[in-house]
């Protein structure tokens, strides 16, 4: 690999070696938006905006870790999301 540390710059010049993917290769919009087999961590995920994001990601098939500090309700919410969008979680 020519850039093993994945540094963004080589001196003052950006490393532009990302490969573009054609629309045909990327697939349908529905496929591109799918989060199947992907994983997200959401801090403050037990309530409010964080929980709203979690529901949306769960609908898209994502595996989710909800992080909370004082909001213990996150535990039951995590279980409920797993149940609603996947198989039972005890």
């Amino acid at each position, binding site marked *: 690999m020519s850039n093993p540390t994945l540094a963004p710059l080589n001196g003052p010049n950006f490393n532009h070696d990302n490969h573009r993917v054609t629309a045909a290769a990327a697939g349908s919009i529905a496929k591109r938006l799918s989060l199947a087999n992907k994983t997200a*961590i959401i*801090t403050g995920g037990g309530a*409010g905006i964080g929980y709203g994001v979690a529901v949306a990601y769960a609908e898209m098939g994502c595996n989710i*870790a909800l992080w909370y500090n004082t909001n213990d309700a996150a535990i039951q919410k*995590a279980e409920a999301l797993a149940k609603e969008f996947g198989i039972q979680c005890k």
Partner: protein
Amino acid sequence: MKPRDRFAACLFTRCCTSGKAYKVDIRNFDSVDEAVTCSVRDLNGRLDIFVANAGVPWTKGVMVDGPLDHYKDVVDTNLDGVYYCAKAAAGHWRRQKQSNNDIHGAPLSNFKMGSFIATASMSAWIANIPQLQASYNAAKAGVIHLCKSLSVEWAQFARANTVSPGYIYTGITGFIPPEYKEWWQDKVPLG
């Protein structure tokens, strides 16, 4: 950090999604770092998206009288916490991009780049009224510029973006008097 249902989660090999909850104090980098690794190991061995959304409001009025420990808490959670989450997550994304393997060493499929999304705020752009919250505003402005900077640093392996919500009906404004909320709502053109 106390992950729940760790053993139960291992039993689910055909789960469409698995959801797990973790108690994490994001004001401590070691807790954050350990929790990212645990979350990744407990779920499916990879990290794709990190939503750094956790935040606390400033609730103590004018800053000239406000307690310094509350100031520290607001900045520790809203800015430092985001920084620590970014640092921990980026370690995984860089490794995933370098090796194209998950945390167990198995090949990754369908990983292009990590995605870091921080919840900033309208407060990062303007100074809210009637409630006064200078430290919250400063921390949120810091989150935005942090993510802009990270998007450059991480160009080879992850993206970094922010979302700046206006007034959203959630628990963070639980301490606000109802008449403030009416005033806020009046100022929303679509309101």
